[in-house]
């Protein structure tokens, strides 16, 4: 979890906006560090007993706080075998490409509705759905429209109904003039229309730099009843213990 990012987004694990759909996207860069941030951010919000820097994912999984669907790992099994058991239902779209992602949504819905009850009867509060990463579905042959329908349903259930949060990672390719019809950029545009907050990570337009790993654009889209449309760009540097964010031109290498 990155404290600087928390202050940029004006949220802490103890007090963050609920019912938010946060879109994380990247182009020629790797935004997965933001997914790690959000994962530890929300787990910390659930369990105030977490001390020190680390959040144990294994422990969270055991307690039932964290539910994993290993999409890529399981998809090979679905494609190669005729297994139509309950476990492979979420990935049934792989066998019938024309079908939408209704099966996957049903898995998500089941998981988020169950997550309210922990082992000892304690409730973990509103659910958080993290998807890493959605553009893999594109390369598996799912259409952009089907993915957008799936995310709309996830947003309706997780954010609107259960007052939880949703964070989705999308990887984009280079912007291409011919690429209007299908592709990751169209998917990203559709998701930006739906989301409340969009974080977009790109390399610096001037090239590689040792001290600045890239730029991140924060786009506040809309709250519940207000429409913001405010954009700001920050530079960042990822290191072992986390990442630091700073306004453009204020890197310690420059000042």
């Amino acid at each position, binding site marked *: 979890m990155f404290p600087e990012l928390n202050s940029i987004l004006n949220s802490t694990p103890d007090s963050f906006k609920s019912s938010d759909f946060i879109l994380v996207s990247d182009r020629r860069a790797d935004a997965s560090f933001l997914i790690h941030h959000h994962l530890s951010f929300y787990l910390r919000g659930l369990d105030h007993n977490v001390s020190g820097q680390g959040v144990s994912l294994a422990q969270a999984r055991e307690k039932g706080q964290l539910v994993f669907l290993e999409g890529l790992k399981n998809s090979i099994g679905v494609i190669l075998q005729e297994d139509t058991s309950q476990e492979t239902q979420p990935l049934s779209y792989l066998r019938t490409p024309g079908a939408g992602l209704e099966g996957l949504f049903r898995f998500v819905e089941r998981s988020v509705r169950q997550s309210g009850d922990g082992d000892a009867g304690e409730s973990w509060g509103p659910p958080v759905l993290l998807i890493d990463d959605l553009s893999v579905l594109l390369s598996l042959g799912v259409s952009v429209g089907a993915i957008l329908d799936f995310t709309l349903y996830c947003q309706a259930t997780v954010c609107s109904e259960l007052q939880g949060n949703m964070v989705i990672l999308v990887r984009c390719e280079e912007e291409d003039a011919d690429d209007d*019809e299908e592709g990751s950029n169209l998917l990203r545009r559709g998701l930006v229309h739906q989301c409340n907050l969009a974080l977009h990570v790109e390399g610096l337009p001037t090239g590689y730099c040792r001290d600045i790993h890239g730029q991140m654009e924060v786009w506040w889209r809309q709250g519940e*009843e207000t429409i913001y449309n405010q954009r700001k760009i920050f530079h960042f540097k990822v290191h072992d213990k986390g990442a630091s964010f700073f306004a453009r031109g204020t890197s310690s290498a420059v000042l």
Partner: protein
Amino acid sequence: MSVESCVLQGAEAGGFILIQDTVKCTGRGLLKCFINAALKRGEDVHVLGFESPETEVCAGLDRSCVQKLHFHKGFPDPLGWTRRSSFTVERFASQHITQLIKDTQQAKASVLVVDSLSLVLRHHDPLVFCQTLQELRKGGVIKTIIGLLHSDLHQQGIVGIVCYLASTVISVAPANNERHSVAKTTRRTKSGKVMQEEEYFSVCKDATLSVQAKPRQPGHVQKERDVSEADPTSNLTFNLRLSEEERKAKEKVALPFVFSQEKKSALLKPTPGSGRIVYEPDDNDDFDEEDPDDDLDV
């Protein structure tokens, strides 16, 4: 026709108002203004809400007329996956919509609002979609259709088709400052005349439209007229003003590079006591007694 008059008066019967937006600027605020204005005019408004929840669409609307608003729940289940919606995208056809509107108690000519047309186009053939729209316009049950379209989610051709069907197209885009957006309104009257206008606007919390000055050139915002220009020579510790004599003396000063008659003669006539040039030509020199500047008309 400005966007403000479009919102306040609505369209004539059989009209189709299209609000086009992109990721850079959402058109949902403007859509809300249309809904609010229609409610205030006492019209029945039917909203097919596929993309946004009812709470979001109705937030800020005038409470006294909200009972004339009929929100047909597509969201949160626009495709019927969880069997919780009262109207799915699949049922976007003229007979279903007409029946839906007739089922309400007062079936006078209503306003149909679709949020959004993009979701409908994702699940219907464009040709069938266009036919549905035309049938609804001519059906008589619906007075006006207002739709929101995310133009950057469709091919240009599809966007073009929907724009062609519309009697009024309003495209929203971001302006230079964050508080306002730019609306470009194109209206086609029944006689075929096309009117275009571009304005700054912002949506207030009570779902009313606030239109500012039109942009004269791209990127310029008109200055507010009630800020008067301050006199820069007042309230100083030194004097920047001129008295009458000082002003006259200033006007009399001959500027250095302006050629007047006195200056010319002063420069060209040799004054007594100035230096003389003594020149002794060499054997190789081609000495000419004539003045080379003789032919100049100075």
